């Protein structure tokens, strides 16, 4: 009845979904491994050893070594730190901007909608490469900036999705009911409209997480993204551009790929669990 028991109920609902729990466990373990990789693994992820290049997985190097002899186990998890950070933060940013603007546009309509949607039109039209190139030159490099750039480029889709959903939700009668109870626009938006966008936000977030990770890899050339000697999952996968790496040294890129899929998948499962909390009707089926 109280709020804590509501939280407990939500928890119970969440845990009632096996996949959601599985997702959470996987996600947390990967995050922890990445976060504490430097403490956990004996190798320095950036330590090069030109006498031990391209070694296949062995007892010493569990995931082998790369072209300049770095331990891929340590490197993969160290890369994960950056990728997780970039993925999560930029998706968060995109969702934040997109949801706020989309909600405003969809809910208020009229000139607000017009203004925001024209902004969306504009951002969608900007060729990302040009924006990135210029931004990189103007604002310089760094992980934080990468997050901002990716976030700033990917919010329009969220915005359109949220707006479209809210356009129909705002016509529903319970919204009118809330208004007659004295609910202000903010309250209606947050309490009644936005929960209805959960489904698309969950999908966007888990897909956006992956695209942010991949985008980050592409950005490092522009001075954004991860800088040498550090790596990110995206940049490790990009090494597979080298045909020999792709075919002969899969231990360099495959683990990162697997981890990207795993984290995205678990994020998605978590999202599904969250959806259960928000959608009473899909209870335990």
């Amino acid at each position: 009845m109280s709020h804590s028991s509501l939280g407990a109920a939500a928890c119970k609902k969440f845990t009632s979904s096996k996949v959601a729990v599985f997702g959470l466990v996987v996600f947390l373990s990967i995050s922890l491994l990445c976060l504490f990789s430097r403490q956990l693994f004996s190798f320095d992820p950036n330590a090069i050893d030109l006498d031990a290049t391209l070694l296949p997985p062995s007892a010493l190097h569990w995931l082998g070594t790369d072209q300049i002899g770095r331990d891929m186990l340590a490197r993969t998890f160290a890369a994960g730190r950056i990728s997780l950070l970039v993925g999560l933060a930029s998706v968060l940013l995109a969702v934040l901007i997109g949801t706020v603007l989309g909600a405003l546009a969809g809910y208020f309509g009229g000139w607000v909608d017009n203004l925001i949607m024209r902004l969306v039109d504009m951002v969608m039209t900007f060729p990302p490469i040009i924006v990135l190139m210029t931004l990189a030159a103007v604002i310089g490099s760094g992980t934080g900036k990468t997050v901002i750039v990716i976030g700033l480029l990917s919010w329009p889709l969220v915005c359109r999705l949220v707006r479209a959903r809210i356009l129909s939700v705002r016509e529903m009668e319970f919204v009118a009911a809330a208004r007659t109870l004295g609910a202000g626009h903010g309250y209606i938006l947050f309490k009644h409209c936005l929960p209805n966008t959960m489904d698309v936000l969950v999908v966007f977030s888990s897909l956006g997480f992956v695209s942010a990770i991949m985008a980050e890899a592409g950005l490092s050339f522009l001075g954004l993204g991860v800088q040498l000697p550090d790596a990110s999952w995206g940049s490790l996968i990009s090494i597979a551009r080298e045909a020999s790496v792709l075919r002969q040294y899969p231990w360099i890129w495959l683990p990162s790929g697997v981890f990207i899929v795993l984290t995205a998948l678990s994020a998605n499962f978590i999202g599904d669990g969250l959806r259960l909390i928000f959608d009473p009707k899909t209870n335990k089926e």
Partner: protein
Amino acid sequence: MLKYIINRLLINIPTLLAILVTVFVLINLAPGDPVDAFVPPNTALTEQQKAVLRHELGLDQSAPLRFIKWVGQVARGDLGYRYKDGALVLDEITSRVGPTLLLASAGLTVGSVLGIMLGIFSARRYNTPSDHALSVAAYLAISTPAFLLGILGMYLFSLKLGWFPTGGYSAPAEKGLLQTLRYLALPAAVLSVQFIAILMRYTRAGLLEVMHQDFVRTARAKGLSAGAVTLRHAFPNALVPIVTVIGANFGALIGGAVFVETVFSWPGLGMLFLDGIESRDYPLIMGIALFMGIAILLVNMLTDILYSWIDPRIALK
């Protein structure tokens, strides 16, 4: 309706102008000078030669002036010349529009159809092994970069099986439609794989959202089969986000699917654009930005019209 379209078109004009101004400012802020881009890093050009080039390209004028001149020129239907080889920008773009649209629409059509079908399938099998398997497959697909997918596809279908060429393009008028399709198959497939995954996720989520609503029960009470209920009642109600995603992707792809085009040497706008950027070819960049701007604005407008067609509660204002 007509009023709405006209209004919207009118609003699009200042939007387009704003886009173009921004792009222009951005490219002028971007490091790298077109004349530098003209020659490789270690080739010597004297200052005099550079000055000649700058003058000839009009780069000795101030940026605002250049922009205004460009707009005036565009108003007369002239997009100018490429810096690099003096080709007409308009010709360059029009020669790429065909392949670009072909690839984009093939990829999107295949992707939409399959993505939606799989999305429906996995929503109906919510939380079963096949649903989970599809989830895994979807994330696998979107986590695989286009270049990797392209190269892998090439290894398999061009090198090992020899079904499709490794790349290139053949216009339908040239060697017939069949040949065009052979060239199209791999790039379109690679493009659609990611799109299938994306749409599948949105379709699935959207369907799960509506499957439990009262009107679905009504439809079942009429005796509709589960499939018909999903297709005719649940699906349309889940369509708005799907249309949004398709629209957004189509918009983006009109500017070219750069990675796919690069891997498969597909002569699309994306590659041309990349070339334009690599060589800081301002008229080309602006020309493509103009084209993309118009196209994306139109697609977005179409999406908005579709919303109100799908959901009559959404009024066009």
